[in-house]
């Protein structure tokens, strides 16, 4: 791997000149730092969840309210969306026809929205069973942790729409490329967080 290929922790683009390369490096490094700061927030909410897991105070327990089916489906959808975003990034790197890039972004968006719809349905089901965040410390910590990830996905979806519009308006100029790479990092990061959520919250909750 040459120095240019390993220049920044993201998908390396073939840049026409050194200045654009430097800018991309700085922008992506900065975004990584932001993600690490965000990861601390998730880490603390995971810890809070772990501490409050037993604070059910006679209310619903994890095993009562989690359903493995929808959670598994959500996992599959989100992981697939990460894959399709990867295909969008590859299309951008190789300057494939604009249609292909937009197409993969649209597929990612649809998958993201489907994930959100399923997740909201989960929450509504829980609420219908009386498992509201006001019921117990345990449910409070659940409803701070999991919906925060959902909120991130929603922000990612909004960002996807903005980027699709920008691809159409500006074409693939330097800023669109950089911001698409950032969005890619964001999207994959949310995938990793979800794997944590699926294992720590849902799987662990159902084992008990």
């Amino acid at each position, binding site marked *: 791997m040459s120095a240019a290929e390993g220049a920044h922790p993201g998908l390396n683009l073939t840049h026409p000149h050194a200045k654009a390369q430097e800018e991309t490096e700085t922008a992506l490094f*900065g975004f990584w730092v932001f993600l690490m700061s965000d990861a601390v927030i998730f880490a603390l909410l995971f810890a*809070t969840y772990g501490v409050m897991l037993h*604070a059910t105070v006679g209310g619903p327990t994890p095993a009562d309210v989690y359903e493995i089916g929808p959670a598994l489906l959500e996992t599959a959808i989100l992981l697939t969306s990460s894959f399709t975003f990867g295909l969008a990034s590859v299309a951008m790197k190789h300057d494939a026809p604009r249609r292909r890039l937009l197409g993969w972004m649209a597929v990612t968006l649809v998958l993201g929205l489907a994930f959100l719809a399923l997740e909201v349905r989960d929450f509504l089901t829980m609420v219908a069973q009386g498992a509201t965040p006001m019921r117990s410390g345990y449910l409070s910590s659940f409803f701070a942790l999991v919906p925060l990830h959902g909120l991130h996905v929603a922000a990612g979806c909004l960002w996807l729409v903005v980027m699709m519009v920008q691809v159409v308006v500006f074409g693939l100029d330097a800023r669109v490329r950089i911001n698409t790479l950032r969005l890619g990092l964001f999207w994959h990061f949310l995938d990793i967080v979800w794997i944590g959520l699926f294992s720590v919250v849902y799987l662990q909750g159902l084992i008990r």
Partner: protein
Amino acid sequence: MTEPLWPAVFGRFGWMDLPFVRAWQELSVSEIIGAGAGGLVVVGGLAVVILVTWLGRWRYLWREWFTTLDHKRIGVMYVVIAFVMLSRALVEAVLMRMQQAAAINAPGFVAPDHFAQLFTTHGSIMIFFMAMPFLTGAINYVMPLQIGARDVAFPLLNAVSLWLTAGAAGLMMVSLVIGRFSTGGWTGYPPYTELAFSPDVGPDYWIWAVTLGSLGTTMSGLNFAVTIYKERCPGMTLMRMPMFCWTSLCTSILMIFAMPPLTVATALLALDRYLGFHFFTNDLGGNMMNYANLIWLFGHPEVYILILPAFGVYSEVISTFSSKELYGYTSLVIATMAIAVLSFTVWVHHFFTMGQSANINAVFGIATMAIGLPTGVKIYDWIWTMFRGRVRFSVPMLYSLAFMMTFVLGGLTGIILAFPPLDYLVHNTLFLVAHFHNMLIPGLLYGMLAGYNYWFPKAFGFRLDERWGRISFGCWVVGFYLAFMPLYVLGAGGMTRRSQAVFEPAFRPWLYIAGVGALVLLSALVTLFVQLWVSIRNREANRVPVGDPWNAGGLEWSIPAPPPAYNFAVIPTVRDRDPFYGEKQAGNPYPAPKRYESIAMPANSMTGPALGVLGAVTAFGLVWHMWWLAGLGLAASIATVIARSFARDVERLIPAAEVARIDRRWRKEIQRAKPIGRVVEGTPTNRGLAEVEA
């Protein structure tokens, strides 16, 4: 107006939320003070608006300052915020000292609830809106110059950070006029700050002001760290960076990782208060120990966020005013990094008494004492830097010396507090209050004031008045000892902190001495402003246009004072530590560029001020349950960010001819100036050109 309409529009606001109405209804000295403070905010705000309008400077302010992305101007605005907030919080401190001195077996003049607001705002402001803006401003101004960069890595983000901080500080000021502030102390411990015990708007003001500020700080940290990693000029390796850059880097890393716990703590508290969650409530499984852990997981690294930049300033100042290179540079770097890492391992020492096992306390006590080691290394390094140097007792140097004496003293009482069994004796007493003021006043305030005196000539092109600087210094030091040494005695004698009234007559003399000390500190603040006023009046005599008034070694001194917008006409190449000093020794400190090139700088943007105002509006809506306002503010914030992402014309080009003109004018100043020796650096002969010493 129909009944349901009022809450829909004004949320829970009522006329009694205005301090003026309160003072009218229940006349008392305490309420009059509250109304007076609110009135001061209103009158002060109006006076500024009228003055700027009268001078016709709105356009200038908007174009040159509010919308600028120049790291230097953003830095200056941070420091302005810090001075304004310092003034308010210091006056509050004086009020508290006067109250305690007056309330010995007597009611005093400040009501208990008002007193609780005073200590809450004093602490919150001093930490979040005095100390943080001051050091962020200093890093903003100095660090890019020291590493030979033209700006920070993300100039727009920098402006957004500034304006979020400004919006949060504005919210603090608004809380004086509309409503009331929290009574829960600067850490806002639940369950007291939960809805069940504090149903009023106070804790909500605290939550949102702190949250806005901490978001800004997180982004500042990110920005500085990336700048240091990515924007250093050729040859500026990490181990050639000035010490201030190293401490800035460590502080930035701490900001990136330590501010999120604060955001989580305030967000979870907000969920409890707004949506009925049970994180920290007394019932339904809430656990306030989680809050204590979260807030101190932030809170302890925070004190190193505060202190490390000051350590950087002292390193620069002591080296410059001893005319020697920094002793033990590598050990200072390692010590700084060690402090940054250890700062994450000691948070439990803030609540030794809250029920964890003795073994856990022992571990955290030992970790706490371990921090004394790298700090000791630093003190010795500074002493050895002065050893056999040509020490000049300039104002920044005086602050550095006062710091070393005072800080070591505070460190010793810190070791006492780090023993869990001893901590049990003085926990929650004035001993603790004395200790952390003994760390933060020398360890932050003196450092920032030293930096202010040291870099002011760089930023504005003229030196600050030495005589008034010394008077102010004297007041800060004498005032500190008078105000806080008695608190050690009182704390050891069992006086609890945050007491509105005192029932032990034996405390009287100590409280009186502390009260006098507070007044001396107030005069320190006044003389600080006098110094600024006198300096501006005499600015022509004290100009240092060449830019090197102290014969220092960093790159920031190799450019004009004040520096041009682009900092460096040509990006320098560095060959050694203290690069400018090396060039001076080599005899060619100001090499004329072969040719000038056009320089692209970030264009102005109103995104920063817009997000600051919208952030504050959103927070205000949330505080008062004006949901429409909060929703509107949030939606407008998101729209602003999206709109900005469509902007493409984000650079302005400074043409080569303009760069050449500015640079040549400066070179004429260099030729006109007479090189001066260190003996006369405090006199008007100092035009910023240093005599090269053998």
